[in-house]
């Protein structure tokens, strides 16, 4: 067990002695990225505050590199752990560079004067987050996204072994989100810095994390690798999503499917149906989709959005059952959309379905694709 860098055992956290979440036991190796996910108000920040010692733990222990967290002095802790918080900072007359430079605090002398080496570290950290051009701007005058990058630079500059970030991607646009996460990724993998953070974007959490911690209720719901945790049912339970849907494969969230009897049959394959599905959903038209191989790209979305999906096992010829069901739908629906089907030896019966739809005058090719 000695190779775990950060461990908690039986940790209970909460405010004013009232436990909010009990028995948190996690083991994190050096250089791992661990993400806390869960609904608002579930206690993600409370956990992060407790492991950064802003909040006194109610029970249990936190061990950092073999040493108990409560046994470390604030100063020792500062050379190992850096934080990026959600708390809004309102410094007066400070440039972005001044803010980054505060990260050197644990290393400067009595009066906090920066040496040449400290100055270099500051520039280096600002370069890593691509914020050199912000150096002399007033911190209060830069955008939220820029501010977040400056705060990350501040944390980097502190040369920690572990960085704790509370929702670092809020306020960021998609490009800066990706940039921030890839900086974290490379710090974790190249420099062996351990990262613990909370994220709202579960798709990003899935892609960046080595471990995921689901926070809900009074204990940790589930904890493990993204593959283990990102189960459709688990995520729906975690966020109490009754209506929307979640695809664990891509981490994407879908709005609920239109209700009612299918009015339209969409015929497609290999991703050609996705645009049509989305459009029909936005127009709130219930539809069915077919005949899709269960490994087809369209199938992944159709199963979330379509009222019914007519499926076939991959690389098999279309069975009578599937064919009959599809023909039934051709007759029942008011319209059949051909979103573009690649037809080969296995699925040549698709042609028969298309012909039948044409014969009934119901076939439309999707020209808005």
């Amino acid at each position, binding site marked *: 067990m000695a190779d775990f860098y950060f461990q908690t055992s039986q940790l209970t956290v909460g405010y004013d002695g009232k436990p909010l979440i009990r028995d948190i036991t996690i083991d994190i190796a050096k250089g791992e990225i661990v993400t806390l996910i869960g609904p608002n108000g579930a206690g993600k920040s409370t956990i992060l505050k407790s492991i950064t010692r802003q909040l006194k733990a109610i029970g249990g222990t936190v061990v950092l590199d073999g040493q108990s967290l409560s046994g470390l002095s604030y100063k020792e802790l500062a050379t190992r752990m850096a934080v990026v918080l959600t*708390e809004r900072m309102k410094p007066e007359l400070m440039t972005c560079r001044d803010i980054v430079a505060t990260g050197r605090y644990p290393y400067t002398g009595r009066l906090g004067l920066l040496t040449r080496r400290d100055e270099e570290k500051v520039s280096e950290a600002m370069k890593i987050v691509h914020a050199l051009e912000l150096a002399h701007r007033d911190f209060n005058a830069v955008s939220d996204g820029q501010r977040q990058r400056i705060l990350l630079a501040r944390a980097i500059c502190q040369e920690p072994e572990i960085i704790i970030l509370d929702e670092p991607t809020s306020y960021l646009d998609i490009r800066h989100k990706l940039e921030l996460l890839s900086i974290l990724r490379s710090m974790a993998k190249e420099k062996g810095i351990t990262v613990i953070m909370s994220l709202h974007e579960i798709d990003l959490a899935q892609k960046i994390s080595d471990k995921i911690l689901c926070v809900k209720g009074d204990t940790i719901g589930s904890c493990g690798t993204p593959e283990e945790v990102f189960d459709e049912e688990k995520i729906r339970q975690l966020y109490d999503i009754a209506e929307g849907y979640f695809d664990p494969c891509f981490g994407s969230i879908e709005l609920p499917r239109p209700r009612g009897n299918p009015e339209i049959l969409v015929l497609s394959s290999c991703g050609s149906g996705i645009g049509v599905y989305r459009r029909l959903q936005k127009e709130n038209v219930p539809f069915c989709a077919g005949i899709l191989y269960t490994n087809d790209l369209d199938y992944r979305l159709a199963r979330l959005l379509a009222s019914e999906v007519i499926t076939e096992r991959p690389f098999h010829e279309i069975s009578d059952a599937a064919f009959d069901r599809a023909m039934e739908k051709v007759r029942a629906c008011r319209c059949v959309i051909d979103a573009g089907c690649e037809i080969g030896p296995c699925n040549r019966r698709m042609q028969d379905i298309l012909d039948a739809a044409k014969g009934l005058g119901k076939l439309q090719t999707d020209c808005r694709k």
Partner: protein
Amino acid sequence: MEQENLHTYRSTALYCVVFIALLAALFVITVLNINIGSVPISVGEIVRILLHKEGNPTQVSIIWKIRLPRILMAALLGGALSLSGFLLQTFFANPIAGPFVLGISSGAKMVVALSMIYFIGAFGAVSSWTLIIAAFVGSLLSVGFILIMSRRLKGMAVLLVAGIMIGYICSAITDFVVTFAEDSDIVNLHGWSLGSFSGMSWDNVRIAAILVGVTTLAVFLLSKPIGAYQLGEAYAQSMGVNIRVFRVALIVLSSILSACVTAFAGPISFVGIAVPYLVKRLLNTSKPIVVIPAVFLGGAVFCMGCDLIARTAFAPTELNISTVTSVFGAPVVIGMMLRRNKER
């Protein structure tokens, strides 16, 4: 790195200019203060009296016994008051915090008045140290009350209202006891309770110099954690500041400073807010290591200037020092609030 050096160079140059200007102002105001009065003394005379210890005996005694201690006291207490304001603003993360608006001066005034009446009644005299300790206790009482309020109520406006209320309560109690106290020293007490630098002795100067000097040095040595605290409590802690100890230190130091002022000169308004604000704008930074000495100097200059006006504007009638500091300080504070509103 090149560009960095240029920026560092520029800000260092600005700091130097500001400090030189403050020192020059200090010098000029000191000379003016010695020079102007009911008995004008020319600059040549001043040099002769101060350096060669010779000249007209009346003038010698005016300078040594009246004007010089008063000037030094105005400088020391002005600096102390401004620094106390700066510390409170850091503590509450609120630029409008200051010993006067938060009711800290009034609390000190109340306890000082009570102990003056008691000690003069019982022993016929009261020592400077007793007054300072009384003022310190009064300051801590008010701060404690403000702290309890600020735990429950967040926001600048609420804090201010709480402070002003404390101020009123303490002033009411002070007025009450002053009205009903039967003592010849009440005249003295009444003048003091409105704020004045008059009647300072060398003894007072010595005590104030020691207290203010040591406290200011301690504050200066705390400039590193003060800088960290400016980013907020949570960040300061993550940088290695022991928040509990630091908060106590901040409160105690600022209370000693404002207690010292109140004990000797009574409550003085607006200096604690206006001076730190102006000095930070001048220096274009809030880095404590530069701001702390500059705030002290700035406060000294400001109070000496105000005292000069208080003394001479309607001579022989002397104005309360607070009257003058309000005239100059209040507009600065109003300007500050307008500007902050615009920035938001």
